[in-house]
């Protein structure tokens, strides 16, 4: 299986107080644990179970994902730009693997 690749789409700059749109996607199978392989064995569950977005190290949006989130989990959400700073995006997979991306937002 390929390594999950996360992607984000965030504006580089924003006006103070502006609502910015953020799009995120991680390439991931989201194996539900409900399927069986050709030998009849249950394929173990392996999903992205949490997504967290931090702005200035403060959690500003997060999602708890269950099996029914579609493969390649996609989220489009909206944040209020306050001051220039770092946005961190973190995806957690069953079993503890973590995937992360970072983005610098310029607010002026």
């Amino acid at each position: 299986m390929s390594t999950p690749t996360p992607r984000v789409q965030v504006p580089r700059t924003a006006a103070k107080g502006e609502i910015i749109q953020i799009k995120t996607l991680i390439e991931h199978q989201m194996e539900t644990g409900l399927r069986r392989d050709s030998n009849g064995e249950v394929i173990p569950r392996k999903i992205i179970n949490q997504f967290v977005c931090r702005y200035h190290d403060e959690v500003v949006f997060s999602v708890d994902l269950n099996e029914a989130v579609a493969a390649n989990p996609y989220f489009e959400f909206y944040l209020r730009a306050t001051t220039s700073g770092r946005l961190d995006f973190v995806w957690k997979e069953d079993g503890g693997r973590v995937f992360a991306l970072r983005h610098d937002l310029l607010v002026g």
Partner: protein
Amino acid sequence: MVEETRAAGLTRRAVLTAAVAGGAGMAGVTLASPPNASDDAAELIKHLTGKTPTESDRLHLAMPRVFANGYTVPLTLVIDSPMTEADHVRDVRVLAPRNPLITVATFHFVPQRSEPRVSTRIRLAQPQDVLAVAEMNDGTLLMTRTWVEVATNGCA
């Protein structure tokens, strides 16, 4: 065809219920609110959260009415809320009661930081009412529902 038959059955039942309720109207108040699908959803939410939700038009759950592919059904959730410290949405749970696993996802919002709005894509096993349940900062639960018809089982 099956769906049409079922729809006709529901209509007939609704008509009969209305007739009975109308006839008994003089007799008392016990038939004031005839049972409907809403009660099942409310029961389920009470079972999951321990609280009784209120149906609210402050929640908007936009999904296609008919979608061929149950593996990736688009969903947009918008909540009417000022997102101030005094009045905001804490989180919203999306439920698909006819999926093998009911809870789809829970979205957490932060007052003055995130807007109460999100889009994603979900899996649906069969045609059903998808539910959204919002917990407000005062602890109250608001809910809404949207009927989605899928042609293929997205959970197989």
